[in-house]
């Protein structure tokens, strides 16, 4: 029993067995491929079909008779094999171009017939003329060596290198000439099981390729230069591919570790959390990923296009989608940026004043109170995230400025100025008020916190604290050494406490300080007392060395050793210890 198919051959209706139909279709396809379209392929096929219909009509006695495979074979015997349809000049050409075209037109395809994953390795193997097993080994080694990054390149090749679908593709993948004999052979080998697959063979194109291949062999010198140029272009392609590839891989890793899962506690995650941009972290990560990644993706394709000649395009819709996605990401980031800027448009300030019971006769000891939990990091002005004693997330900063001023009042005072930015004045002021900052006064010692804290939901809005200490004229200030990094000796703030005056007793006068125990005075005294009094010296050795600009005096005697460079730079070694003075 056999299934039959109804066919219309040159306008005549036939019943035909399915296997006979397949055979007939194969036959007609093969003829079609043996004819190039310039010869009037369509017309010839129509003539042939008409002749076959005529032969079938002669063979069928009644309308109900079915054409079997036997009739088809008889007709093929009468009509001849596909090669018989070739015209003479093609036969001549075949013999000369077959051998040459073998080395020509080898193209990169994925060999899905011999694939483990995507057929990339076996395709590359055909292309490079080596066994696929070596290519696979190389992939494994490179993947292990690059800790998995090469998988992405494999996937990219999988996507963009076309699959060898048609017989012609498979032949050019192996570098074999695309001609009727080879195609027939492949079909007989069972390469193709469905007849429809071979139809996409563009026979004429390969015919032309073979012809140009033959003529280009004559232009040996020209092709040599072309070859070198080709290698150069390919190298550029590889370079682009590598740059874009590594960037993409880096972005992927960044997106999936930091952005989404928060595996790594990167510094910018804290910042984004504090900034209160109004979008969750993963949104910002994704937007950044698209905004940066898509241009590099196109670069990647460009590199690939240079390397793989017959690269499958990702298609216009995909390109437009990517472009749209990129524009949206850019717009999204811009909107967030503008929003962030408006959130800081206004600056608010809150000033609290406390009385400092210091009169003109008193001495004030001023020091910073450090808390190891809130110590400064690399950047003083940065806000940092932290869990407080109650495990609430809070922000803290060591951006505290200290300013000392004189006052004509009888007692001193402290002004604590807290500032912050906000979307309006009220918001900014509220935020400034929320800053927590403490001072303590005990006896005549004033301790200032070296840090301030704020709630996380106040977000990062340039919070700052400035402490202004007003001291009555005539009082004495002893500033601890530890305030030096908070002390802003700046005219803008009207600070009268200069650098390097810490650790000394300072007399406060109108808008200035007078140093009572500064090293200059001390060293002068020491100079007069011990250096110039030569009467006391016993068994003294003096050196006076150096030239006119670098005058060093060394004196060794019973009191010790003195090395003097000038008035302010000297070393003195005595039984009291070693004293080094440096300007």
């Amino acid at each position, binding site marked *: 029993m056999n299934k039959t198919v109804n066919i219309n*051959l*040159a*306008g*005549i209706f036939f019943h035909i067995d399915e296997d006979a139909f397949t055979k007939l279709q194969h036959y007609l396809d093969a*003829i079609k491929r043996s*004819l190039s379209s310039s*010869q*009037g392929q369509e*017309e*010839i096929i129509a*003539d*042939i079909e*008409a*002749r076959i*219909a*005529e032969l079938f*009509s*002669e063979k069928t006695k009644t309308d109900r008779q079915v054409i079997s495979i036997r009739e088809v074979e008889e007709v093929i*015997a*009468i*009509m*001849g*094999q*596909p090669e*018989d*349809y*070739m*015209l*003479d000049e093609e*036969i*001549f050409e075949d*013999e000369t171009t077959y051998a040459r075209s073998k080395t020509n037109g080898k193209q990169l395809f994925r060999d899905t017939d011999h694939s483990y994953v995507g057929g990339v390795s076996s395709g590359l193997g055909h292309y490079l003329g080596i066994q696929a097993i070596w290519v696979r080994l190389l992939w494994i080694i490179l993947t292990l060596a690059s800790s998995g990054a090469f998988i992405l390149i494999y996937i990219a090749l999988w996507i963009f290198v076309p699959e060898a679908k048609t017989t012609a593709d498979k032949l050019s993948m192996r570098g074999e000439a695309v001609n009727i004999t080879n195609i027939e052979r492949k079909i007989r080998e069972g390469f193709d099981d469905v007849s429809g697959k071979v139809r996409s063979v563009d026979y004429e194109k390969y015919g032309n390729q073979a012809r140009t291949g033959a003529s280009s062999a004559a232009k040996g010198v020209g092709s040599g230069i072309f070859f070198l140029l080709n290698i150069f272009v390919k190298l550029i392609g590889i370079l682009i591919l590598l740059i874009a590839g590594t960037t993409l891989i880096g972005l992927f890793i960044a997106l999936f570790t930091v952005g989404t899962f928060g595996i790594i506690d990167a510094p910018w995650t804290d910042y984004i959390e504090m900034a209160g941009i109004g979008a969750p972290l993963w949104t910002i990560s994704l937007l950044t990923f698209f905004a940066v990644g898509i241009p590099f993706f196109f670069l990647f394709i460009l590199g690939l296009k240079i390397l793989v000649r017959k690269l499958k395009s990702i298609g216009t819709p995909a390109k437009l989608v990517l472009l749209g996605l990129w524009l949206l990401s850019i717009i999204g980031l811009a909107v967030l940026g503008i929003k962030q800027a408006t959130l800081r448009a206004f600056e608010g300030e809150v000033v609290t004043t406390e009385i400092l019971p210091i009169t003109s006769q008193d001495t004030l000891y001023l020091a910073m109170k450090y808390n190891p939990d809130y110590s400064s990091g690399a950047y003083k002005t940065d806000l940092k995230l932290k869990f407080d004693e109650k495990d609430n997330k809070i922000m803290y900063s060591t951006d505290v400025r200290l300013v000392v001023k004189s006052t004509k009042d009888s007692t001193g005072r402290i002004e604590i100025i807290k500032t912050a930015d906000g979307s309006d004045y009220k918001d900014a002021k509220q935020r400034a008020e929320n800053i927590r900052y403490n001072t303590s006064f005990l006896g005549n010692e004033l301790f200032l916190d070296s840090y301030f804290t704020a709630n996380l939901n106040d977000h990062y809005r340039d919070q700052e604290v400035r402490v202004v200490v007003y001291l009555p004229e005539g009082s004495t200030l002893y500033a601890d050494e530890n305030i030096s990094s908070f002390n802003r000796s700046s005219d803008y703030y009207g600070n009268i406490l200069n650098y390097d005056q810490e650790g000394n007793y300072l007399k406060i006068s109108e808008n200035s300080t007078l140093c009572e125990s500064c090293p200059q005075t001390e060293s002068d005294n020491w100079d007069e007392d011990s250096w110039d009094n030569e009467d006391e010296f016993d068994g003294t050795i003096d050196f006076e060395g150096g030239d006119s600009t670098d005058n060093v005096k060394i004196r060794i005697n019973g009191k010790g050793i003195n090395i003097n460079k000038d008035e302010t730079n000297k070393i003195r070694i005595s039984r009291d210890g070693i004293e080094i003075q440096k300007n």
Partner: protein
Amino acid sequence: MNIENTKAQMRKGVLEYCILSVLRDNDAYVAEILETLKDAKLLVVEGTIYPLLTRLKNAGLLNYRWEESTGGPPRKYYGLTDTGKDFLKELTHTWDELQTAVAIVTTQKNKNHE
């Protein structure tokens, strides 16, 4: 060198001349042309003729008209154009020359061998 190929080439070389000759006196459709050629054992399989006919027609040597047939599909009746007739005359002349030349060469060869 493939002997079958050489044989086919020799046959195909004169095939165009023969087709034109068949059509010299009266128009014919493909089956009739084929019959004449097959009887003369010039053609083994039919397939060869179709590309040739189309080529001759495209070169303006042949033209055709459709005629209904009783049993099968409509038939293409081929005939010579004026260009075709001139072409045929030219070919006949060349063929005669060639025949003489080949005859001289091949008989000469035989004499040498004897």
